[in-house]
C-alpha cells in the first residue's frame, strides 16, 4: 500500500489549483491521479479564449490557462500519475486505482475529489427517432475538432444553448460548416450572455427558444431532425414540427457532476447540485474528504473553479494538521427562486468570510438577494438581472454568522 498525506483525484483545473494551494499551505506529500495522458482536464480541448478574465485580468485560451497551473505544479515537484483511473474509494480513504503497472492501493490522510462533470447525452433525454452516425454531445465534437483535428459534420443542428454548444456553433461555422439552428427547450438560453452574442448573433445563427428536437431521422448518417415547440411542462406540442435537413446533431444540454466514486463512501449528496453536500471549506460529510470544481457544482467560469479549489487545498492542509476537526454546524436554506446554494452547511469553528454560490431557477430582473436567519436579514444586495446560465454569489462577513444559532437562509426576490 502506497501512502500519501493528500491524494487529489482528477488533474483538471480543480485538481491542479487545489494541489498548488495545499502545497503552499504546508502539505508537501501530495499525489494527483489523472485518468488521461496529460494534466489539464477539459481545458485541453477548449482552445477558444475568454479564460482567466476574472483571475488574471487577461483573456487566455483553455490550454494557456491550464498551463499556468501545470507549470506551478511542476515547479513544486508535486507527484502525479497519468493514465491512471481510480476504480474505488472508501470512507477510510483507501483508493484503488488502475494503470499499466497494475492495480494499486493508496492510503491517504486527506482526499480531494476533483473529477469534473460529464455531458448529458441524447439517451438521457430520451429524444425519439433513429440512431445513426452524426449524433454527438458538444464536448465530444469539440474533442474531435480541437484535439484530433477532424470535423464532425457540415450541416449541423444543436440542441441546447449551453456554453459548449454555443462555442461549437462558432467553431464549426469558422471551419466551413453551416449551423442551421440552435433549439433550446427553456424560454431562455442556459449559456453566458457573451457567448450568445459572440457565437450565435455574430454569425446569424437562429436560436429557437421553447423548442426541442422531437425526432432524429437517418439510417446510416443523420439526414434530418424535426424541432417542435414545447408547452409549459416541456412536452412537445404536436403539429408544430419544423423539419430541418442536416447531417449532424450536437447536444449541449447540461453537465452532470461525475461522482460515481462517492457511491460507496456514504458521503451525503445534494439532489440539487448532484454533488456532495459540503461545508464552507469544501469538506464533505466524511471527515477529510473534500470536493471542488464541477464535480461539486457546475461552474460557469473556470476562474471560480480555481478559487473554490484553492479553498479546498488549504482546507485539506488544515485537516491534515488537525485543525477544525470539531464542528459547530448550522444549516443553509434557500428560497424557491434558487436552484441551489453552496455550501449547504457552515462550521462556525472555521473563521473567515463565507462566499455563498448559487444559481437561479429562472430569469429574474430587479433582484434583491438576502441572507437571513430566523426572519432577521443580516446581509442584502441588489442585482439588475440574474439568469440560470450564470453562477451568482453573495459574501457574508464572518462576524454576522459567528453568533447565529438557527439556519441561515439565502433568498432571491424579484419585482
Amino acid at each position, binding site marked *: 500500500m502506497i501512502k500519501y498525506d493528500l491524494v487529489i483525484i482528477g488533474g483538471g483545473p480543480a485538481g491542479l489549483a487545489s494541489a498548488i494551494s495545499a502545497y503552499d499551505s504546508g502539505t508537501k506529500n501530495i499525489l494527483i491521479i489523472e*485518468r488521461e495522458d496529460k494534466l489539464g482536464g477539459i481545458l485541453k480541448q477548449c482552445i477558444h479564449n475568454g479564460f482567466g478574465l476574472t483571475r488574471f485580468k487577461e483573456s487566455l485560451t483553455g490550454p494557456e490557462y491550464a498551463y499556468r497551473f501545470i507549470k506551478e505544479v511542476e515547479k513544486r515537484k508535486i507527484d502525479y500519475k497519468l*493514465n491512471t*483511473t481510480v*476504480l474505488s474509494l472508501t470512507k477510510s480513504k483507501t483508493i*484503488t486505482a*488502475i*494503470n*499499466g*503497472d*497494475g*492495480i494499486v492501493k493508496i492510503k491517504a490522510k486527506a482526499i480531494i475529489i476533483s473529477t469534473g462533470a*460529464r*455531458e448529458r*447525452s*441524447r*439517451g*438521457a433525454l*430520451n429524444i*425519439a*427517432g*433513429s*440512431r*445513426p*452516425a452524426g449524433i*454527438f*454531445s458538444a*464536448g*465530444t465534437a469539440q*474533442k*474531435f*475538432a480541437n*484535439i*484530433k*483535428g*477532424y*470535423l*464532425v*459534420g*457540415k450541416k449541423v443542428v444543436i440542441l441546447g444553448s449551453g456554453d459548449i454548444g454555443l462555442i461549437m456553433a462558432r467553431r464549426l461555422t469558422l*471551419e*466551413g460548416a453551416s449551423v442551421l439552428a440552435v433549439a433550446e427547450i427553456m424560454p431562455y438560453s442556459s449559456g453566458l450572455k457573451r457567448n450568445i452574442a459572440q457565437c450565435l448573433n455574430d454569425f446569424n445563427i437562429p436560436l429557437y427558444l421553447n423548442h426541442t428536437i*422531437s*425526432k*432524429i*431521422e437517418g*439510417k*446510416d*448518417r443523420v439526414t434530418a431532425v424535426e424541432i417542435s415547440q414545447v408547452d409549459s411542462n416541456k412536452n*412537445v406540442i404536436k403539429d408544430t414540427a419544423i423539419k430541418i435537413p442536416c*447531417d449532424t446533431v450536437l447536444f449541449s444540454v447540461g453537465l452532470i457532476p461525475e461522482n*460515481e466514486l462517492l*457511491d460507496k463512501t456514504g458521503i451525503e449528496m445534494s439532489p440539487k447540485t448532484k454533488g456532495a453536500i459540503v461545508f464552507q471549506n469544501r469538506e464533505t460529510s466524511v471527515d477529510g474528504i473534500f470536493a471542488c470544481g464541477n464535480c461539486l457544482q457546475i461552474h460557469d467560469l473556470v476562474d471560480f473553479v480555481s478559487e473554490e479549489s484553492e479553498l479546498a487545498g488549504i482546507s485539506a492542509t488544515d485537516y491534515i494538521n488537525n485543525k477544525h476537526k470539531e464542528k459547530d454546524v448550522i444549516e443553509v436554506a434557500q428560497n424557491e427562486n434558487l436552484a441551489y446554494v453552496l455550501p449547504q452547511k457552515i462550521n462556525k469553528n472555521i473563521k473567515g468570510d463565507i462566499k455563498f454560490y448559487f444559481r437561479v431557477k429562472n430569469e429574474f430582473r430587479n433582484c434583491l438577494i438576502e441572507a437571513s436567519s430566523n426572519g432577521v436579514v443580516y446581509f442584502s444586495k441588489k442585482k439588475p438581472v440574474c439568469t440560470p446560465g450564470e453562477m451568482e454569489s453573495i459574501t457574508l462577513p464572518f462576524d454576522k454568522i459567528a453568533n447565529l444559532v438557527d439556519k441561515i437562509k439565502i433568498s432571491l426576490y424579484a419585482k
Partner: protein
Amino acid sequence: MFDIAVIGGGIIGGSILRELTKYSLSVCLLEKENDVCMGQSKANSGIVHAGFDAKPYTLKAKFNILGNKMMKKYARELGVKYYNNGSLVVAYNEEEQLALKDLYNRGISNGVKKLKIINEKKLKKLEPNISDTAKSALLAKTGGIICPYELTIACIGNAMDNGAKLFTNFEVVSAKKNNDHFDIISKDNQNVQAKIVINACGLGSEKVANCFGDTSIEIGGRKGEYILLDNKCNGYFKKTIFKTPTAKGKGILISPTVDNNIILGPTAEETDTDDTSTTIDGLNLIKLNVNMMAKNVPLNNCITSFSGIRAYSKTHDFIIKESESVKGLINVCGIESPGLTSSPAIAKYVVSEIVSKLLVLEKNKSFNPKRKPDYFFKRLSIKQKNKIIKDNPSYGKIVCRCEQITEGEILRALRENPKACDVDGIKRRTRAGMGRCQGGFCSPSVVDLISKELNIPLEEITKKGKDSKILIGKEK
C-alpha cells in the same frame, strides 16, 4: 464450395453455425450488414423464459423448455454472463389473478419446473418496489437473463474459432440451384456456393426464401421500443417483472440485465418496414406502464432508448423445417420470443434432426466448445487483473470510464473472432460506450484504436458500416 451456408448472423444463425462446427463440415455465415448481430438479436429484452407462456404442443413451447434447461451450460462454455434471477408475472386485479391460474396450468402442462403462485405479502417481500396495487404473482424460478448480443457474438466467434467462415456485407439477392449445390449471389455480385442453405434471416427471411424460390414463408414485423436505466439502479428489481399477458402478447416488462442495468419495455407495434426509430408515443407508453407496475421507477436515470423489430411468422409458431418446394433449403424463421431462450435447442434440433438427413455427419474431433478468454475483466479479482496487466499493460488503461472498459479489451475485440470493425461493434463486444455518458468520453479514443489497429484513416471509421462515417474529414 461449402457444405452449408447459414444466412443471417443473429442468434439463430449464430447458434446453428456453432452447432454445425461440431461436425466435420465446411460452413459459412452470410451477413448483410457490416457486422454480425445487427437485427433483432441486438435489441430485445434478453430474457431466458421459463416456458409457461407458449401454447402447449407448439414448437415455441417445446424449444423454450429445452433451451431454458441448456442455457446455463451453454453460456458458461461461451464465457457469456447468464443469471438465473427468476421471473414474476404480476396480477394487478381479479381478472388478472384468474388469468394467472391459467398461466400456471399452462406452465405445468408445458413441463415448467419450480412454478408457483405467490400471494401479495410474499410478492412485496421479494420485490419491495412492486406497485401497491399488485395482488399476486406467478413465480418462475427457472426464468433467467442473458445479454443477447454477447451470446450471439460468442456463438459466432466460437464457430469461427472452430473453422466457420464469415462473410459480412453479403446481402443475398438471388440464388440458383445447380445440381448438387446452390449459387448464392450477393448485391455486389459475389458468389458463394453451398450444398445446403439455412435461412435464419429474421425479418428478411421471407425475402431470402423467395430468392431461393420458396414462397411459403410469410413474415410480419412488430416493433418494440425500450428504455434502459443506468447501472446505478442495480437492485431496483431483482427478478424479471411481467404484466399478466393479454391476447396482444407479454406486454411491457421491467428487468435487471446481466450488466446491472434495468430494462423497460417493449412496446408492440405492427410495422412493415425495418425502421427502428423510437417514438415519443412509444417511450411515453413505456413510462406509463412501468409507473403502473412499480413504484419509484428511477426514470431520471435513463441512459438510452432503442427499439428492435421482432419478426414473427404468420403461422404464429416457429418455422423450423426443410422447405417443401426447395430441397436443401432449411428455413428457420419467425423465431420471435421465446427465440433467444430456444436458440441452443433449435440449433441442436436443426443439425441433428434436419441436416443429418441431408448430409452424413461426422464428429469434428478438434471442436473446442470453449471460447477464450471466458472472463469479463471488470469482474476479476485484483490478483487476476494484475496478472493480465503484467502480461499486457493495455489492460491497465481504462478507455470507457462509465463501464470501466480497458484498452486491452478493445484491442481484443478488434483481433478475435468475429473481429469488430466499427464503433458499434466495439460497443457490443466490450460495452465501451454503453454507460451513462453513452460514448461521449470514449468514442474519440475508440475511433483512434480502430484506426491504428486496422490501419485505416480516422475519417473512414464508421459507426455501423456503409455510410455511417463518424467524421467527415480533416479541418481546414
